[in-house]
């Protein structure tokens, strides 16, 4: 891994963490949602730096729309979307902080102490990766992948159904 790549990994990693922190530190819901968006985008860029080109581009693409939708829901459903009233929207704060810190610390300790072995030296180039992933998806893992597709479809139908009934009941009355 070249020094430049390492620098990119560090930079985007820090960006992802920084934006993740902003998500819960800002009081404006819009900023919160967009901070999450940029955190995920930084993650996508980090994937690019890790030479997983397809996944990186996919992450950057998917998260943009996904988190924008998150933003509109935030503004729709929050009492104080602009964060102007400076309300406190948190609870059991100490427990949460302890849980978060302990979890991160444990994971970090495991990451540091585990002997991961020598890193791989030759990474397949992006077009090889694409082909390999395609063959994986339409070969051995087809069933798994199709299941994921069906799951998404089911979730779409289920979410619509959950969101609908009030309207229908009103009509039936």
């Amino acid at each position: 891994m070249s020094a430049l790549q390492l620098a990119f990994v560090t930079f985007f990693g820090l960006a992802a963490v920084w934006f993740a922190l902003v998500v819960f530190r800002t009081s404006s819901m819009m900023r919160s949602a967009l901070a999450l968006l940029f955190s995920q985008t930084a993650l996508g860029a980090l994937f690019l730096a890790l030479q997983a080109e397809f996944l990186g581009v996919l992450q950057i693409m998917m998260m943009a729309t996904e988190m924008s939708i998150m933003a509109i829901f935030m503004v729709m459903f929050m009492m104080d979307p602009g964060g102007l009233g400076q309300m406190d929207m948190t609870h059991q704060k100490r427990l949460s902080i302890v849980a978060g810190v302990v979890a991160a610390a444990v994971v970090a300790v495991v990451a540091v102490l585990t002997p991961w072995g020598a890193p791989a030296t030759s990474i397949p180039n992006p077009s090889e990766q694409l082909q390999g992933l395609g063959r994986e998806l339409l070969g051995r893992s087809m069933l798994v992948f199709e299941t994921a597709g069906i799951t998404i479809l089911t979730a779409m139908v289920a979410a619509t159904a959950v969101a609908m009934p009030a309207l229908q009941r009103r009509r039936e009355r």
Partner: protein
Amino acid sequence: MSVLAPILALLLLAWCVAVLDAWMTTGRFRPLAPLTATLALVAGESLVPRKPDRLFFETAPILLLLAAVLAAAALPIAPHLVITDLATSALFVNAALAYVLVALLMAGWGPDGAYAMIGGWRFLGQTIAYSMLIVMPITAVAMRAQSLLTTDIVRSQAGLWNVLYQPLGFALFFVAAMAVSFLPPFDLPTASGELAGGVEAEYTGARRAIFRLGRTILIVSLATATTVFYLGGWLGPWLPPWLWSALKTLAVAAAMLAAGHAVPRLREAHLLAWAWKAGIPLAMLNIFLVGVLLLVIP
């Protein structure tokens, strides 16, 4: 050089498109109009509205410009005239275009104005309508090229342009491209008549100039994308490749600008209904047809 030339080309094309736009709306052909308009905007005062979300307000025009340029970056103007030649560049175009939405949302939220915000949210609805219609035709195009590389996609059309190979995909992509660049009849976020400019409304001076530039480059990017994906990119006899690309791109841009003037503005509810009930099934059909064609004709 490899970066500078495409960017210059992009600016040049943007200039032409701006001239074209003005020509179509005002009926007068003034090749220097973009320069004078920009000078007027930059020289004018750039007002900041009351209680803005300053961060978003300042970032939005730049992000729009950036998204448009990044989308163009993955599109080749001539065989070697491309900024980044990613292996997944067709997908990358798409990823960059997704940030147009983010920019408009920020521009809508930033100035703390009702019209602007409504414009921003409207574009979100519009995105949900068009985004699948961008991805699915590109999928069919990539299927024919057996590659996500835009240069490969252009080369795959050497025998027959995709506009003839998959006309259905072209039609869908063309409409969706107009929706991405919020050209009429899809100009819901800016809706000059009813929203008084929408997301643009609160921008003045230099910020507005950047916003306008970003929008124009966005149109160029989408016209280039249409050219690359469906009209054989730089392919063509006699003329040099870059000139073919430029001519086709300008033609597509002109067609996009002209198409909007003839159709009334669509409500996004209708747009959503149309996109999901007709557009996406048609896009599926397109993918299916291309698949069959690929299997039948080796």
